[in-house]
């Protein structure tokens, strides 16, 4: 144990996050001088790999970036590519609403499986005082059994629409290779109804956890669907697209992304760091989505949000687990609504001929906005590709939060401080494999 003003703590690996990396903290004379999240895994070069490939390939290639949010990669790529090709413009092909709604339904499955994994099996053990889900299972059997069943519900939805739960194979530019039958989707309804109620129960449960004090004041950035584009019955909480909005006043089409947001290289990480053009850090993810789209929740979910204290912006990142649970309810709710309204699209895809130009696309991955930009040649060859995952955008804000958090908790011994830091990082559900990867902790106290 060390309580000196200058000290070093080293942690070999952070558990319960997606990917691997390191964290380094320097403390001198009782003050935190520097916090760095070191993402040291080699760059994966997906953007370079895409150059020279055919414009139909990014949905399948980029899905391989992540095993937990492949749908986000597929649909962000599709949004960008269909945008280049003029889909839904006066001179381009029109996208049938049935295909759009099926994409949204597919995305609900991804939100369910990803949020449930994080809420129950990665994050809840922190609040209930366990090293992990296995230790938690012995005392909270019902909770773990519920988690496994909820995840299965999400994965089944992915399998029925996408062909398989991880790296779906049924998604293509212009739509789907094959649309599921109405009967195939209706068979899922009983489990989705159970899942919705279980997710409501979960939201109330996690809202009762004890949360450490931590307030951050980062700008929130999220997508927000244009109200004029919503089909009847939809409230338009963001999933598969929308305008770029922020708590700092951004309200722009996604084509304006480079005008407002950018990435920069830092020496300690193989992942780029996202910042606003003004230099400010910002956060994407569940708390940002909810803060900027609270009015897009159905009435009963808005009431639940009020009941669990999430109607004001959630600025304590530890409380993000409540928002994730609330969004899980929304995903079940929305899946049921979409299945009830399902009109099998025939054909399952439209032709999308290539057009030379640059296209932008973004969707709300479980961890936040995932942005893609592609340049295409006239024959559909990809000339340029840019992919900005949510964890890259959140990384500078996470470092700032940790700096404040470590400063507040310097009285802890090294083991406890490491444990608390790891919890603080898990608040953001980082996916290092996307950004590109994550966590050994080193604290130097001098």
């Amino acid at each position: 144990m060390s309580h000196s003003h200058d000290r070093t703590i080293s942690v070999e690996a952070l558990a319960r996050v997606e990917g691997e990396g390191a964290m380094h903290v320097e403390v001198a004379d009782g003050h935190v001088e520097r916090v760095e999240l070191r993402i040291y895994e080699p760059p994966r070069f997906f953007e370079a790999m895409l150059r020279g490939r055919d414009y139909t390939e990014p949905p399948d290639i980029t899905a391989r970036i992540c095993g937990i949010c492949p749908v986000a990669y597929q649909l962000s790529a599709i949004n960008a590519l269909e945008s280049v090709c003029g889909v839904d413009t006066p001179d381009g092909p029109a996208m049938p609403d049935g295909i759009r709604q099926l994409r949204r339904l597919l995305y609900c499955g991804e939100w369910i499986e990803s949020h449930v994994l994080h809420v129950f099996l990665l994050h809840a053990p922190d609040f209930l005082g366990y090293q992990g889900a296995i230790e938690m299972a012995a005392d909270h059997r019902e909770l773990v059994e519920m988690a496994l069943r909820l995840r299965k519900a999400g994965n089944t939805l992915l399998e029925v629409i996408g062909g398989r739960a991880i790296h779906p194979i049924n998604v293509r530019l212009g739509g789907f290779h094959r649309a599921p039958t109405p009967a195939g989707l209706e068979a899922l309804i009983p489990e989705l109804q159970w899942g919705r109620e279980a997710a409501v129960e979960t939201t109330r449960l996690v809202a009762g956890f004890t949360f450490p004090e931590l307030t951050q004041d980062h700008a929130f950035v999220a997508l927000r669907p244009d109200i004029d584009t919503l089909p009847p019955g939809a409230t338009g909480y963001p999933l598969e697209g929308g305008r770029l909005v922020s708590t700092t006043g951004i309200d722009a089409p996604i084509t304006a992304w480079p005008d407002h947001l950018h990435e920069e290289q830092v020496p300690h990480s193989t992942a780029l760091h996202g910042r606003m053009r003004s230099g400010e850090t910002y956060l994407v993810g569940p708390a940002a989505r909810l803060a900027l789209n609270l009015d897009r929740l159905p009435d009963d979910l808005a009431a639940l949000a009020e009941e669990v204290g999430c109607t004001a912006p959630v600025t304590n990142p530890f409380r993000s687990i409540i928002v994730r649970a609330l969004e899980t309810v929304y995903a079940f709710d929305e899946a049921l609504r979409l299945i009830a309204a399902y009109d099998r699209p025939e054909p399952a895809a439209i032709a999308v001929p290539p057009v030379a130009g640059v296209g932008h696309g973004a969707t709300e991955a479980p961890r936040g906005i995932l942005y893609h930009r592609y340049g295409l040649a006239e024959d559909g060859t990809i000339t340029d590709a840019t992919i900005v995952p949510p964890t890259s955008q959140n990384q500078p804000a996470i470092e700032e939060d940790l700096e404040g958090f470590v400063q507040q908790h310097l009285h802890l011994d090294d083991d406890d401080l490491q444990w608390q830091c790891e919890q603080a990082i898990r608040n953001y559900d980082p996916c290092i494999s996307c950004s590109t990867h994550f966590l050994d902790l080193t604290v130097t106290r001098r």
Partner: protein
Amino acid sequence: MTMLVLGVGHPDRGDDAAGPLVAAAVAEVPGITSRTVTADPSAILTEPLWDTAPRVRLVDTVRTGARPGTVHRWSGARLVEHVPATGGGTHDLGVATALHLAAALGRLHDTLEVIGIEGSVFEIGHPPCRPVRHAVAMVAAALAREADPGTEVDALQVAVQVRDLEVAVPATEDRDVRVDQR
């Protein structure tokens, strides 16, 4: 139904295909219900037959340092001692973590046996190596005999099935196969 066979693995990733190949090879054997688990191994705990099947056999590719094609068998209360849960959790719960969860939930039954086939090649698009293909045939034949002792099944028959299903090269040599009972 006397036996649930769960074949875990990726069918297009070299020796990782061993589990799915065994599941496919025994799919038509009387008394066996087989499932292939290619994603989210925690799904084995939501498989309806996990708790009710008289016998459960989980087949997966393993890496213990033994020769490729070596067949390991683990069962009983100390099963999880042989399959340490992974510490850093990422992107999904692996088979080992799922088994530890089962133990913590009191759902690791005496009737469960984990059969690990030692693998060495895991590249995407690569076929399983010959010792693994042969081990697949041996394991499938053994499971078929166990489920239905009256059935005339030998390793060669199953090897032919396995070849027809996924593998272009016939599996004929058995001298690299060793069965370890643990």
